[in-house]
Each structure stands twice: as structure tokens, then as C-alpha cells.
């Protein structure tokens, strides 16, 4: 049960970290690598706040051990945009629609929306609701999150224009 060295790519950057086998990817990302956008919500894989992409597929990082990421690529919500770049259009949409209150579910919502829209770029509202059905939010009641994703997906004339039509700030 001694420590072993694990090497993986985090948001495009190669990282190395010493871990014990029982160290969950979630804790290693937050505590060793400063990726605090990855959250501890339930620790059981039902809330989604710990979600990250491993080799492009979203997984619950609370249910993976860091040793399982050897040689793989891990992407968090922070990896949606490059360093120093402007916000991702999805983030702009969330801002315009007021789709975040406490913000705890937001990194996972953005990651899920990005993943889902890559597969289904023109979803119905029902499809959006179904796609985020595994992402729990205690604050917003989901409506503005769905609005923000829908607006981004429909590639509206301008996100701001849509937002003012919906009565958002």
C-alpha cells in the first residue's frame, strides 16, 4: 500500500503525483493538483459535481482511483477553455441567463452540456432535461440552466438578445 507515481494529462498539461491506491481521483485532483472546480457532493456517484472527462468520456471522479488514470487524459470544466482565453460560449450563456446561484453544480453542468451538445447539437428541451437528469442542482430549479443550454445550442443571433427576451439581466 505504499505510494506510487501516477502520470496523466490534466487539461492538456502533463502532471505527476504520488498516490496510494485508495486515493480517489476526486481528492487527488482537488488536494494535490488544485483542481477545486471538481467538487465533492455525494461521494456515491449520483450528484455529478465530481464529474470529469477521462479520455473524453465523463465519469464520476469520486468512483475512480487516481492509479487508474495512468497514461490517460483528464479534463475538468476548467479545460473547456484554454489558458487566458475568453469564456466558453456556454459559460457566457449561463451568465446571461442567470443559470448559476451558488455555483456548486455549475462546473459539472457545463461539462455535461458540452459533452451532450457534441453528440446532439440540436436538442429539444426535453432532450436537454433528460441529458442533465443526472446533474443535481439544489438552487435553481433547473429552468435557467435548460434555457442557457437551449439558447447556446440554437446558436441564437446573439446570446444577449435571447437573454433579454427571456427577461434575464
Amino acid at each position, binding site marked *: *500500500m505504499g505510494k506510487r507515481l501516477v502520470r496523466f494529462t490534466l487539461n492538456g498539461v502533463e502532471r505527476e503525483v504520488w498516490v496510494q491506491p485508495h486515493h480517489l481521483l476526486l481528492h487527488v485532483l482537488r488536494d494535490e493538483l488544485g483542481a477545486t472546480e471538481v467538487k465533492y457532493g455525494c461521494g*456515491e*456517484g*449520483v450528484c455529478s459535481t465530481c464529474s470529469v472527462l477521462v479520455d473524453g*468520456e465523463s*465519469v*464520476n471522479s469520486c468512483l*475512480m482511483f487516481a492509479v*487508474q488514470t495512468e497514461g490517460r487524459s483528464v479534463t475538468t470544466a476548467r479545460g473547456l477553455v484554454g489558458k487566458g482565453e475568453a469564456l466558453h460560449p456556454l459559460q457566457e450563456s449561463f451568465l446571461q441567463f442567470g443559470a448559476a446561484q451558488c455555483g456548486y453544480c455549475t462546473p459539472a453542468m457545463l461539462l455535461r452540456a458540452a459533452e451532450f451538445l457534441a453528440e446532439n447539437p440540436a436538442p429539444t428541451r426535453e432532450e436537454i432535461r433528460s441529458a442533465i437528469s*443526472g446533474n443535481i442542482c439544489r438552487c435553481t430549479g433547473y429552468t435557467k440552466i435548460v434555457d442557457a443550454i437551449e439558447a447556446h445550442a440554437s446558436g441564437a443571433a446573439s446570446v444577449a438578445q435571447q437573454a433579454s427576451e427571456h427577461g434575464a439581466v
Partner: protein
Amino acid sequence: MYPAPFEYVAASSWEEAVQALTRHGEDARVLAGGQSLVPMMSLRLAKPSVLVDVNHAAEARIGTSNGTVEISALTRHAQLERSPVLASSCPLLPEAAAMIGNVRVRQRGTFGGSLAHADPAGELPCVAVAMGAAVHVLGPKGERTIAADDLFQSYFTTALEAGEVITGASIPAFPIGRGSAFVELARRAGDFASVMVAVVVDVDEAGERWTGVRGALGSVSDRPVDVSGELLAFAGEPAGAAVAAEAARRVAETVEARDDERAGALYRRRMIDVLTARALETATARARATRES
């Protein structure tokens, strides 16, 4: 909450996995998708001193040969959900897999792991019993095959012996005239089901009568309940809403539904009636559609 320390062994083949499990005995557990085991470890309900990681022990594989669908244990639920092979030759499996947990759970969770975990509220054990799946096992004494109904013995308890791992399963491919349906009742999206019904029906050439019918209920007992016998009594009747309702009622009357935190026995019994009727009608319509095209 996080797991207690353990020794980590990565197996690069099923044989290696069996050797590791045999060497370490009772305190060793298999790590496949981890979507059921790791929550238990984080809750300290499970404290294996050794984890044998089988994720690289074999490949995910779905294929057909000689009228049989073969699925390897390391096939992920998401792959079952999207498989074009299963969509045409075994559609009950993708329909059930789509209901497992959430999208992230389905990316990692495995076919073999779900069967070995034997959660009475598991979708895959229920459909494995409904379809009469043959489960392939490798152990220190060699290979063997266990019928799905024999595999699941009780809550989280299977017929697997010390050192044995599930390597895959075989399911008869659907012939023309066969249709299936999986229906699940849960209080929230992704929640464990209160009741699950899986049915498979065969209709005659005219699409009028059931020539065969199999079914299983999940989440109502400590293991999937095979209700094929109760349903078979209605084979030969003109297949329609009336027969589906009567068959559903018979199933609901016969099965012992448990009382637990998800649902009371009376409610379960009532829902078994409702969902079985719905599943039978849907499966029959799908079976008929195969005769028409």
C-alpha cells in the same frame, strides 16, 4: 468519506485475475467499473484488503454467432445502450441498460460487474433472467456456465465460488416474431427502481397469438423473480389488451412483493399489475412489427 487503504493488483488477463483472487482469498474483491463497489467502500460497507483491477484483463465485446449473442464481461453499460448489434438481435438489453444510474455510471459500469454484484434492483440481472442468459465463469477449477436464474441467489449473493469471475454471457438472438419490453418505476431519474418488469414474447406468423413468453420482475424481492411460468399459461390466447391485463393480474397475485424503504408491498403489487400489462402490450406490438416488415 473515502475508502480504507487496500493493496492494488492490476490483472492483465482473466487467468491472472483468478490467480490473484485465489491467492488473496476472501478479502480480495474485483474492481471493474467500480460504480457499485466504490460507493460501498466509501461508505465503509466494504473494506477489501486487496482490489484486483480487471479493467485491462479483457476487451469489451458484443458479437453474434450461430443465433447467439455473446457479450463480454467488460462491456460498459453505455456500449450496451448504443450497440447496433444488440438493437437488432437483443433489444431488451439496450433498453434496460439505458435505465442504469446516470450517464457517468454507464460509462464505467460493466455488464459482468453488474451481474456479479447481484443487486436485486439491478436492471441487468432482471433482463438476464428474463432472457434465460447463460453466464460464463472462470475460476481456479476452470470454466463453467451458470444459468442466470441460478446465478442470483439473494441480495448481493451469487453462485460464484471463491476465486471465480464472470467473463461474459450468451443470450439467444431474437428471431423474427420476437418482441421485448423493459419497464421501470422509480421516484426520481436515475434512482433505484421500485418495480421493474422485463418481458419477451413470440407471436405466431399472423401476429395473433403468443407462441412463447418469458418474463422477470426486479426490485420486488431479494433477487429477480422469473414469472415465465405464470405468463406461459396465456400462450395460445389471442394476444391483446385483455389477455395482457389478465396475465398481469395473475403475475401480481402470484408474486410475493417485498415491503421496503422504496415501496410498500401493496403498492408494489399494484404496480406489478400495471407495469406488466404495459410491458406485455408493448412487447407484443414490437413482436408483431417484426412480422409485418
